[in-house]
């Protein structure tokens, strides 16, 4: 169902959190701007003061040129006022009251009245309706010499103050806020990253869970409640899976008891019958049912099995036991089983499960090897085990089939339920191993169980 849709690349939690925090920062910035603008608008005296100071600063910058130059010392730039739509005049005194420079607007003139030498700052406003006249003096230091700049600005309305407000905002709001926001963002990144770290660790831990080991649990990260909730939920799920796997295994045990006891009754009852051809047939049928129950239980064991991480199995010891167990049956049927230990063969595996698989493999070989021949079981060197018979072998095109359930090459063969090789295959899957079916040199089938290294 997802195949038809274009693939959706999910955004990372990290990205989403970072973007949202950055947006919050932006909103703060805007709010702060509005607050600052409103503050200035409501406080005209402060604006007057700022406008005079700004004009004085601008003029002070040109004092060195004015002192060097002759004639009209006022530069082209200074002839225009800072605030458009205003008229402005200025007058510069030095220590002792001498005039350094003066600039008079056509209609605005400042009286030449040297300021008091202790005066540092003065601003004065006169208003008529919306019109205003600002006069002010600022003491400035240029080249270690004090100067007094007196400025007069005449204008109307609020517009003349816009550049001042803009300047104020630029230097006292935007620059610090940008710096603060950058720090805030960096802090966000690192906080979000470190906060999400336990989540990533937990995800990695969940990823590492081996599906074959239902008893595995994730170690809880105690520092974060949310992560702990995730861990608890995953562990609860694992517990439910484990319970159902155990229920399946218990069911196998129950089925064993339920089926085996009536089967035992049946076999003992048949044994009491007088010898006849019919009895021999019943005995054979009961034997087949016994084998079927065995195989079904082996199969359910193999399916419900879980492999402990530290489980070790010695293929040689397992094979010896299986050979010892099956030899009496083989000898009764005129076959033999030979075991060869070709080197140490310790593997990571479930001993009982490998034993059941190998027993089924050897029983299968015994069913196919002709009377008077031997089934040869070899273990090692390394994680491998081979069972060879002297029967007709398995044609290459049928080799995949025979590992499936209820498949028999020869439908007339009466022995077993056709589960034997499926048990082998299921068990080897659990061990991440491999079943290989080959032709033995000199004829017969060669079944090899290959276990992974380590």
């Amino acid at each position, binding site marked *: 169902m997802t195949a038809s849709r274009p693939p959706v690349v999910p955004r990372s939690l990290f990205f989403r959190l970072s973007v949202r925090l950055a947006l919050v920062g932006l909103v703060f910035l805007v709010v702060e701007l509005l607050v600052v603008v409103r503050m200035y608008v409501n406080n005209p005296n402060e604006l007057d003061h700022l406008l005079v100071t700004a004009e004085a600063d601008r003029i002070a910058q040109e004092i060195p040129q004015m002192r060097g130059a002759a004639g009209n010392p006022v530069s082209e730039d200074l002839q225009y006022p800072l605030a458009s739509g205003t008229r402005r005049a200025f007058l510069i005194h030095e220590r002792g009251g001498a005039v350094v420079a003066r600039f008079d607007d056509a209609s605005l003139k400042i009286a030449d009245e040297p300021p008091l030498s202790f005066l540092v700052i003065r601003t004065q406003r006169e208003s008529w309706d919306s019109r205003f006249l600002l006069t002010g003096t600022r003491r400035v230091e240029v080249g270690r010499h004090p100067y007094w700049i007196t400025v007069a600005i005449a204008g109307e309305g609020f517009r003349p103050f816009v550049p001042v407000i803009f300047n104020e905002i630029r230097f006292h709001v935007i620059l610090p806020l940008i710096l603060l926001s950058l720090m805030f963002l960096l802090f966000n990144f690192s906080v979000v990253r470190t906060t999400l770290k336990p989540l990533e660790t937990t995800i990695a831990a969940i990823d590492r869970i081996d599906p074959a080991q239902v008893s595995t649990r994730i170690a809880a990260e105690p520092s974060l409640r949310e992560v702990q909730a995730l861990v608890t939920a995953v562990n609860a799920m694992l517990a439910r899976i484990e319970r159902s796997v155990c229920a399946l295994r218990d069911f196998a*045990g129950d089925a*064993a*008891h339920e*089926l*085996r*006891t009536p*089967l*035992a*009754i*049946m*076999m*003992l*009852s048949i*044994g*009491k019958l007088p010898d006849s*051809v019919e009895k*021999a*047939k019943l*005995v*054979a049928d*009961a034997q087949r049912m*016994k084998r079927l129950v*065995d195989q079904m*239980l082996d199969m359910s*064991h193999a399916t419900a099995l879980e492999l402990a991480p530290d489980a070790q199995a010695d293929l040689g010891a397992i094979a*010896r*036991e299986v*050979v*010892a*167990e099956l*030899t*009496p049956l083989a*000898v*009764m*049927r*005129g076959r*033999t*089983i*030979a*075991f*060869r*230990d070709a080197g140490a063969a310790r593997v990571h595996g479930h*001993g*009982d499960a490998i*034993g059941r698989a190998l027993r089924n493999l050897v029983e299968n070989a015994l069913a196919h090897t002709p009377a008077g021949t*031997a089934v040869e*079981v070899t273990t090692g060197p390394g994680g491998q085990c081979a069972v060879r018979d002297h029967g007709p072998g398995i044609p290459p095109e049928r080799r995949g089939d025979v590992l499936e359930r209820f498949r028999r090459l020869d439908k007339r063969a*009466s022995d077993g339920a056709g589960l034997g090789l499926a048990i082998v295959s299921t068990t080897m899957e659990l061990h991440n191993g491999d079943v290989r079916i080959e032709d033995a040199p000199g004829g017969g089938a060669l079944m090899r169980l290959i276990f992974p290294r380590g």
Partner: protein
Amino acid sequence: MRVLLAEDNPRLAILIAEGLEAEGFVLDRFASLSVAWESMAVTPYDLLLIDLGMPDGDGVDFIRAVRRTGSGAPILVITARNGLGDRVGGLDSGADDYLVKPFDMAELAARCRALLRRPGGCLGIVLSLGNLDFDTVAREVRVGGRVIHVPPRERDLLERLMRRAGHVVSKTSLEEAMYALSSEVTPNALEAAASRLRRRLGAAGADVILHTAHGVGYMLVPAPHPTDAGAEREAP
């Protein structure tokens, strides 16, 4: 031979009892472990047959309790479980042998006799297989009633094989039997002894076969009768 049978399935209990009584045993049947336990206090049994899955408790715990009383009577466990783990658990608890359901009467009777023949068991005097007899007290080997000479080591080997007749006895176990007292073990000693024993039995006309389970051990089985082979072929 008085045998205790703890089995909760009445039909199976009756069939086992009838089968073993036909073989000359005397059976007391119990459908619960608690009643079996009470009976054990007053009756000395020569052999205990215990079903592990009883309604009033686990057979393994019962066997442990029996062993704690100091009783040495052989115990044969009958069970529907067939896991190797169950088998080891059952034997660790003090059981002597293990029989998985379903089984036929011949198998059960053979196991019971084998257990009673063990040292400490009641049938410990003469081991028999086909026309071969082994007198464990006189240390004599007889074929068809005639005493034949068997050197001590081969005799120990034969005894171990006859006690587990019909089963593969591991090389390790056989080597232990042969070299219980001396320490000189050569790699081929067991093979050589087994091969001499096989020739000796063959020359004396014993109708048993000493089968070599290559790489694992040896197994002593009765020589197949021609009629048995016929029955085997007849099976569909």
